[in-house]
């Protein structure tokens, strides 16, 4: 059983890692890299589902790296929350990998796209599964360097410009995160998150300091999660690389940041009415508003979606701030749904641009007539994002709004619904400009030599669409799971006992 337990929790990290190592070995052999990448990604998805199923049946699973007992070694732990996100992330990753077979240029593949993407998947797995604060930092850095590399790969001027902002702000975030972890260690002398949570209750004289330390995490992890007013790096950089890269970064990274916020603030720093709640609420509200307004004012497919990521982060943060079971469940559901939908929307944009050679609304049009399947994929994904029932986004929005009204947070609930209207505005803007409108007559010559449309591009999108539809129309099991996940999160003693059970 030991081996199986170990494998169960390790494979989500090891499978992509081994895949990446093999890919680096086959540095020049693109075809082999593609095969490895596909197999790895399928394997990862399988492992995630296996783990999810295990956790659903038998509760939280933990292992100790190196066999050292709990607070002393590094704990790897999977609860429902992390498993759900892991599975969603693996599915999104699978779609992007398949997509990249048909849309990514050869030079970028020759310079390590696949190994880096796979190491990023490993980083995501690690971030979601680790139970150790400093280990979390290490995984974050892996994600960071992978994002750096992916954003700059290809080295166009825009990519570099965007990357400069990305790099600067995220290096500051890393520094602050390290400082925050140091502060926590300096206070309680432990790095295991469960143990810190125990200590936090045992050291009443440090309650105030814990609040201060939590601010370090709000800012540093908030930067990674792209919360207002810390999100600037995101709209500056996410639209610069090719879609196969944008999609995977945009779909997954900020959500992982949000995962960490939820994890930390349910386990270590409890959100109690007062300063923390106020801060989170204000941030959530402003993030939503600024995000949707930003998205509504852009004229570029990818830029609209970049700002849209920001606004959606606000919803997820709102659930954390409200801090009731329903709200947390709403956040969890929202994160999951958003990973899939955002990835899919980016992929659609990529397919459109492959044929039309542009992301700028001015030069796009006529897709509705020409590519009906693509239009359907976009429309349903967009409606999901906008929270139109019975698609997936509705449930997230509904749970969050209901939780807000129930707990008396009327303003934020109202803002969340109001932001929904603007969400519809910018999505219909894309729909109008890219799909419905006829293509403009005066297109610059350099955009005219476009690639032929590859029908296979729609395969990964259909895959994601199926999941999105299932998430929305057969929502019951998923919502049930998120509710359970929220219960686990709010009763942190379950988590703590699972980690420290030997003692």
């Amino acid at each position, binding site marked *: 059983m030991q*081996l199986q337990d*170990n494998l169960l929790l390790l494979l989500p990290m*090891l499978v992509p890692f081994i895949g990446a190592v093999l890919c680096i*070995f086959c540095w020049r052999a693109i075809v082999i890299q593609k095969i490895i990448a596909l197999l790895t990604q399928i394997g990862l998805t399988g492992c995630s589902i296996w783990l999810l199923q295990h956790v659903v049946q038998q509760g939280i699973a933990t292992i100790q*790296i*190196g*066999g050292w007992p709990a607070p002393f070694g590094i704990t790897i732990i999977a609860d429902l929350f992390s498993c759900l996100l892991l599975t969603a992330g693996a599915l999104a990753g699978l779609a992007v990998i398949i997509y990249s077979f048909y849309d990514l240029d050869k030079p970028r593949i020759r310079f390590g796209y696949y190994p880096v993407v796979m190491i990023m998947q490993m980083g995501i797995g690690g971030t979601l599964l680790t139970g150790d604060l400093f280990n979390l930092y290490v995984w974050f850095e892996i994600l960071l360097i992978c994002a750096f590399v992916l954003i700059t790969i290809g080295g166009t001027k825009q990519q570099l410009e965007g990357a400069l902002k990305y790099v600067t702000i995220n290096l500051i975030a890393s520094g602050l995160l390290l400082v925050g972890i140091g502060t926590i260690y300096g206070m309680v002398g432990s790095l295991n998150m469960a143990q810190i949570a125990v200590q936090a209750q045992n050291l009443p004289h440090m309650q105030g300091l814990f609040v201060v330390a939590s601010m370090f995490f709000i800012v540093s992890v908030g930067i990674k999660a792209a919360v207002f007013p810390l999100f600037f790096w995101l709209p500056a950089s996410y639209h610069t690389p090719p879609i196969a890269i944008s999609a995977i970064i945009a779909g997954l990274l900020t959500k992982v940041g949000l995962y960490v916020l939820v994890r930390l603030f349910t386990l270590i720093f409890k959100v109690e009415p007062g300063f923390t709640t106020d801060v989170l609420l204000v941030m959530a509200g402003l993030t939503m508003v600024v995000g949707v307004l930003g998205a509504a004012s852009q004229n570029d497919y990818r830029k609209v979606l970049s700002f849209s990521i920001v606004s959606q982060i606000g919803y997820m943060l709102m659930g954390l701030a409200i801090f009731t079971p329903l709200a947390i469940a709403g956040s969890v559901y929202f994160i999951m749904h958003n990973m899939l939908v955002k990835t899919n929307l980016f992929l659609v944009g990529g397919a459109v641009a492959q044929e039309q050679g542009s992301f700028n609304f001015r030069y796009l049009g006529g897709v509705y007539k020409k590519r009906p399947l693509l239009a359907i994929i976009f429309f349903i994904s967009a409606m999901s994002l906008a929270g139109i029932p019975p698609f997936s986004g509705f449930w997230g929005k509904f749970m969050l709004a209901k939780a807000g009204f129930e707990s008396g947070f009327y303003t934020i609930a109202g803002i969340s619904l109001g932001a929904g209207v603007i969400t519809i505005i910018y999505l219909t803007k894309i729909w109008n400009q890219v799909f419905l409108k006829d293509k403009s007559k005066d297109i610059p010559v350099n955009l005219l030599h476009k690639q032929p449309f590859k029908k296979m591009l729609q395969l990964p999108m259909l895959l994601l669409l199926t999941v999105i539809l299932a998430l929305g129309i057969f929502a019951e099991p998923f919502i049930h799971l998120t509710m359970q996940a929220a219960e686990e999160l709010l009763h942190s003693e379950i988590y703590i006992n699972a980690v420290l059970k030997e003692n």
Partner: protein
Amino acid sequence: MKTIILAAALRLFFPLFIFFSFYILIRGHNHPGGGFIGGLILVIPFIFHVLIHGAKETQEKLFLKRVYSLRRKEQESDLGYSIRNIGYRLRGLIPWYSRQDKDRVLVKQYVIEPLHIIPVGLSLSLIAGILPLFLGEAFLTGVWAKAALPLIGKIGTTLLFDIGVYILVSAVVLKITMEMSKS
């Protein structure tokens, strides 16, 4: 920075640094040192080489491996030639014993690319982690051999892990310096 003295000194220091770095790696478990510091020390002479000679020349001199065969004598039997050639090839493996024969032919040459060493380092560390799994232990558990080797001491997976770090760090730093110097 192409000074003769430095170049000469470097030739002297090369084996010294290599052995020293290995020493640091091995003693790391009980004294200050370890794979990371060792790896950094290992690349110092290489970096100096790059600084002095430039990346192109470093690659040529240190990382370009050539495989030679003997030129076939007239009317030599296949068997005789093969025996002679195998002997020559085997000798070629020993650096200071290889002969600069005039009648040799270049069979192939290849560059040892630090990039290819990177996955070697990664996989060594990974193997050190995975090995204990087969012994029923947790991932990355330190498993120790019963017997100890002279000079090195006890052998365990942690040492393997540290060697992985050592190789990887040196390969990465080497790659980075050479790329930066080339551009």
